[in-house]
């Protein structure tokens, strides 16, 4: 693996002094990859692709955007009308955020289904969660920048969540705002951070890849690679497969950009921010709705713990919980294919999160709140009760002896131990 063989003396000369070509050779060409990865494994490379698209379009937007409360809305409108292809760059960025979240949510749920967070991939999983949290912060601050009604009121509501903490809450909120309401200092720092964080994410993506290439990819069977027969080189097999994924993804993404660019956005955000007029219904972008539902599920103060504080803590906990997943799930079997009960409750969790998202978009009526509470309770029940119990009591189906053995029916110990995806 190490040591690059090349006839090109320039490449050889450079590589002896700075082994960039050996590194590429090892991690993007020869990198041994399980040969049975299905198309759910495309979403990592797709998310990486999307990150690059967001950074590139974002830099061009920043060349024309003005982070000032009096001019921000107008500067975005100027981009849409007067900048050459400004409408295209902005629609790519706007819909790109939505697509990025779809890709990353599928990527995370793929990890949940195939047990990609289990030993030895805990570090890989944790870095992924950190990336996800930073991504949410970046998306939230990015949504504030156009300074529409929902930008302003969304920023006000979300930053106000920190006021739920006793004693220091108010001080934290004023510190975040840089004043006594969401205003110019807030917009300026949000712009600075919105420009900074994507590069932090980019760095963490390389750490994520570093960890991945140390422990190697998981696979749909969830069993370890046993011999070179189980793997194929990354190039050309997975490079070409990733290109197919990018092609299909682009078709969907660009269809929205060119033909329905405002479908995922709230029309209210095309009204300039007005601190004197609250919109009748404030709701976050769709990708935050499940957390918004969890936040709003808590309606009663208990022993001085305000409902708001409970909601805020539950919302943070719903994500932080994922850090503990390697221990909450005690099953030694990774892939849900060999876990008959986990396979069912996995889809229940997906359904629960979809339901939370839908409920999060509704105005809070008593009946809605009850449904939200049930869905929230089930979310925590899944991770804190179901998973540990399943680890102890679920009887997994027999695992194939190796990836190759599972593929060649004659060599397989049991007849077709898996179903087709």
């Amino acid at each position: 693996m190490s040591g690059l063989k090349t006839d090109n003396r320039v490449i050889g000369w450079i590589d002896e002094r700075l082994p960039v070509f050996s590194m590429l050779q090892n991690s993007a060409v020869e990198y041994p990859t399980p040969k049975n990865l299905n198309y759910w494994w495309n979403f990592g490379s797709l998310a990486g692709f999307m990150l690059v698209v967001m950074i590139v379009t974002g830099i061009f937007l920043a060349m024309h955007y003005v982070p000032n409360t009096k001019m921000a809305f107008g500067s975005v409108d100027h981009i849409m009308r007067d900048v050459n292809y400004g409408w295209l760059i902005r629609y790519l960025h706007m819909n790109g955020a939505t697509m990025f979240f779809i890709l990353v949510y599928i990527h995370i749920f793929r990890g949940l289904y195939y047990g990609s967070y289990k030993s030895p991939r805990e570090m890989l999983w944790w870095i992924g969660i950190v990336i996800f949290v930073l991504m949410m912060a970046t998306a939230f601050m990015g949504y504030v920048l156009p300074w529409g009604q929902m930008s302003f009121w969304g920023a006000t509501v979300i930053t106000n969540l920190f006021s739920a903490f006793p004693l220091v809450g108010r001080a934290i909120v004023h510190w975040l705002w840089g004043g006594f309401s969401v205003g110019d200092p807030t917009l300026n720092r949000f712009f600075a951070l919105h420009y900074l964080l994507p590069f932090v994410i980019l760095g963490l993506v390389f750490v994520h890849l570093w960890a991945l290439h140390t422990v190697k990819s998981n696979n749909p069977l969830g069993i370890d690679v046993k011999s070179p027969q189980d793997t194929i080189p990354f190039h050309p097999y997975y490079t070409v497969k990733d290109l197919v994924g990018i092609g299909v993804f682009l078709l969907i993404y660009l269809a929205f950009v060119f033909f329905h660019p405002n479908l995922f956005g709230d029309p209210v955000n095309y009204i300039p921010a007005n601190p004197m007029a609250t919109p009748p219904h404030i709701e976050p972008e769709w990708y935050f709705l499940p957390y918004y539902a969890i936040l709003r599920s808590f309606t009663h103060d208990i022993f001085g713990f305000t409902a708001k504080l409970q909601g805020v803590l539950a919302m943070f906990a719903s994500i932080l919980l994922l850090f503990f997943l390697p221990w909450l799930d005690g099953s030694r079997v990774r892939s849900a294919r060999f876990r008959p009960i986990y396979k069912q409750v996995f889809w229940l969790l997906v359904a629960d999160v979809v339901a939370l998202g839908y409920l999060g978009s509704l105005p809070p009526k008593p009946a809605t709140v009850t449904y939200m509470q049930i869905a929230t309770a089930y979310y925590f029940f899944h991770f804190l009760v179901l998973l540990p119990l399943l680890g102890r009591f679920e009887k997994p189906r027999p695992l194939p002896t190796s990836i190759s053995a599972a593929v060649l029916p004659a060599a397989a110990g049991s007849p077709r131990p898996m179903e087709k995806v």
Partner: protein
Amino acid sequence: MMRSLLIGFAVALAMIAGAPPAGAAPGPNRIPPLLRPHFSFQGVFGRYNKAALKRGFEVFHQVCSNCHALNRVDYHSLSAVGLTKAQIKALAAERQIQAGPNAEGKMFMRPGRPSDPYIPPFPNAEAAAAVYGAAPPDLSLMAVQRKGGPDFIYSILMGFVPAPKGVSLPPNKFYNEYFPGHAISMPPPLAPGAVTYADGTKATVPQMAHDVVTFLNWAAQPHLDERKALGLRVLGFVAFLTILFYALKRQIWKNVDQRD
């Protein structure tokens, strides 16, 4: 996996179906579903109808612009709705705008120029509110600011009906079926024949409403034609490229034993 996927979504659907529908507040404030006429610019192949754009501008110019601003649209961009350079120059010069200071340090009024944004009928929102009781909103982005967009504007324009029995309106308010709360400050703006069309089209209320919505949608999304035309070419190219990638993938993978 397919079976459990179906079960999962069935459960999700059941949970969603059990939840109450969004909106739909019963009682006198109920808003009927918006009118949904067909507009030339809708759909993948939809483009702005040039004649409708021109007529729509005439409605805006002769009716709407007496109260509403169009601050984000420059005069010169109106060439896209079919105005000639000379017409644009004359149109801009119809209104005065404050400029200066001059060499003596005085502000002065000058006629508008094609490079100016459409000059509003009032110097500021307060002046407009003082006359009408409420400031008429800027119409530059109206077609994307409301749920339903063009359908919303069309419905409002068509929605002036006599107030139902038992509904009393505050002074200087008008009853509109589609306006949230039904009491709108705008008097019914369109009456048959309110506009003289240059192309001789009969100025009925639905005709004027339809045309002006086309114009306002253009004002909010001036690049729609270009966007959709480019979109078709880009998607065609990406589809072709994806087919090639897939064929290449099949070729490269044909000797790999794998079942996924």
